């Protein structure tokens, strides 16, 4: 096989992995702060994807331009969900939280099925079939834009947690719940804010990924599972870990498809997960629990 094929596939995997990473980042933020495992994560992303499809079909609005409004809608939905439904479950046993989120996921999938039907829906922009030729390399334009958008959104999120007062307060809640209460932080509001940020993140990822993948309601569970694989690989609760995990899984799937058989590429992603669980259970960038 010519050498350029390896680079082409690797670049494609890297760019897809960045979008995966952004999606998993939302899950990591929610778990890292609220300590609730969001089993409806992929389903929330499909909501964002459908929003992008509807906006494009109705008004010809490019999903990349609609990224912020869609993220804002998902933020509000996440904030309200946390305040009304999830907050009462915070102190309940984990299995109750799991069942709650699984129920939310099932409701979302079925509502989407009722509204949009089972057909795959896509956004076909003017650049959907474009690619850039750089010497022997051919780079998919859509994936390139998606990858760049993912990096920008992730950078904004990192900056928020590093520099913004609310970001610091959320981190304080995540680090020491009792301490946050003692110093007078409104933990309930901050939890809702963190959950909203997580869903906004997955909303942005949905608006981006709809450029690459056609959306169907049953897509949600598949992406929830993928997000789990990524955050566990990268380190549960670690934001850089989620991004790194996404890139690693994207690259692994692409290269496994090239070197072995494409139908087995998911197997290799799960193989990475098993190796991480065996040799570094806290994930690549996760902190070891004492």
């Amino acid at each position, binding site marked *: *096989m010519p050498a350029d094929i390896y680079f082409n596939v690797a670049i494609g995997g890297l760019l897809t992995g960045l979008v995966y990473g952004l999606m998993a980042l939302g899950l990591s933020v929610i778990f890292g702060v609220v300590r609730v495992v969001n089993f409806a994560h992929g389903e929330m992303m499909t909501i964002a994807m459908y929003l992008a499809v509807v906006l494009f079909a109705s008004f010809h609005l490019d999903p990349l331009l609609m990224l912020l409004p869609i993220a804002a809608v998902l933020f509000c939905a996440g904030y309200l969900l946390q305040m009304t439904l999830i907050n009462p479950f915070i102190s309940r046993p984990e299995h109750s939280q799991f069942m709650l989120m699984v129920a939310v996921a099932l409701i979302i999938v079925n509502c989407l*099925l009722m509204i949009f039907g089972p057909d795959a829906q896509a956004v076909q922009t003017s650049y*959907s079939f474009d690619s850039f030729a750089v010497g022997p390399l*051919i780079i998919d334009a859509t994936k390139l834009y998606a990858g760049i958008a993912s990096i920008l959104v992730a950078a904004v999120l990192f900056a928020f947690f590093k520099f913004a007062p609310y970001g610091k307060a959320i981190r304080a809640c995540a680090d020491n719940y009792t301490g946050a209460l003692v110093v007078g932080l409104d933990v309930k509001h901050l939890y809702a804010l963190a959950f909203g940020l997580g869903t906004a993140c997955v909303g942005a990822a949905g608006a981006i990924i709809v450029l690459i993948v056609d959306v169907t309601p049953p897509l949600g569970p598949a992406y929830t599972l993928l997000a789990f694989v990524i955050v566990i690989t990268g380190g549960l609760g670690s934001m850089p870990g989620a991004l790194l995990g996404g890139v690693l899984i994207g690259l692994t799937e692409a290269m496994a*498809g*090239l070197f072995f058989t*494409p139908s087995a590429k998911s197997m290799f992603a799960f193989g990475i997960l098993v190796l991480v669980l065996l040799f570094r259970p806290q994930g690549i960038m996760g902190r070891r629990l004492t």
Partner: protein
Amino acid sequence: MSEPRNVTLHRRHLLAGAAALGATVTAPAIVRAQGAALKVGVLLPRSGAQAGIGQDCFRGVELANPIFKGLGLPELQIMNADTETNVDVARARAEKLIADGAQLLVGAFDSGQSSAIAQVAEQKGIPFVINIAAAPPITEQGYKFVFRNFPTAPMILGDAFNNQKEVFEVGGSAPKTVVFLHVNDTFGMAMKNGLSAMMPKFNMPYEIKETISYDPTARDLSVEVAKAKATGADALLVVSRLNDAILMTRELVKQRWSPQAILSMGPGWYEDQYLKTLGKLGDGPLSFVPWYDPNKKVSKQLEAALGKKFPGINMNTNHVYTFEALMVAADAYKRAKSADPKALADAIRTTNITDNVSTGPGISFNAKGQNDKLKNSVIQNRGGKLVTVAPKGATNAKVEWPMKPYDKRA
């Protein structure tokens, strides 16, 4: 309050009661045999990865009863079930349909799902007429209640090889190498195995440089297409479904690879959704598939009815073979004069419909329950429409060969 009555039970009363009970029990069967519509459970993948095709098949169901009326066939009472593109769901839905009173089953587009339904039908003794499914083992199990009016994978392949040679001859050249991309579901694997076994016997002008399989629910086929392109093959040989056919075309355009031809031996490339989604980029692929004879009377009726009810939809395999499966059911019910499953199965076994739609002499079944007289056609996408380019004598256009490169299209 009424007073309690003293009732003496006589032998005469018992006899009358038994007679009345007997009449009540047997009456529905008599009524059913004399005019009630046959309850047909139609199982199709109307959600999940094959939703588009399942819904397309259902158009054939919606057109059936009005046309049957004109042909003197009895009306059918359709009971719908969605298999959700899932073998286990297909099995469960078949059981439920039978429990709900279905007297005959039709479905299920996919070989894996049809195999599961066939097991249920055979176990319960309810006739099952397969509309579309090509995996050979389904009719090799010695089933007594399973019938298939659709070619098996070897039949499709045999016809495809012969028709390919005809197309190459008319086109004036043949690819020397091809790369074979296929889904790894039951149908895809059956076609792959059949291809390996049968190709040497047909002395094809090309060799297969590489075989690449992929998951039917794949969301991205960039790696698969990159790998195929890297082989440097002249043409693409594919066995796919609808969503993957669209994904593959997008990748061909993005990766700037225009093969000499796309030779499809399965669904996907001729579907309306494919044509509408891709516009001009959807032109060119050749599908070597079970099709319909446009000159048959019922074909014209079905085409007209489809055009009226679903404007803008091209008639295709999905409509034709789903319609014909129901036609087999209605014809058997008419001849059996009963909804008894065994009588229906016996009637299906002796089916001889010549006034039909599909290419070939008509519908009849061999001892295994397979219609082995079906023939394939070659369809090419041209300007959002489908034209028949082979076999000789059943064409309405000349093949456009080689396929116009993607970058040369407006």
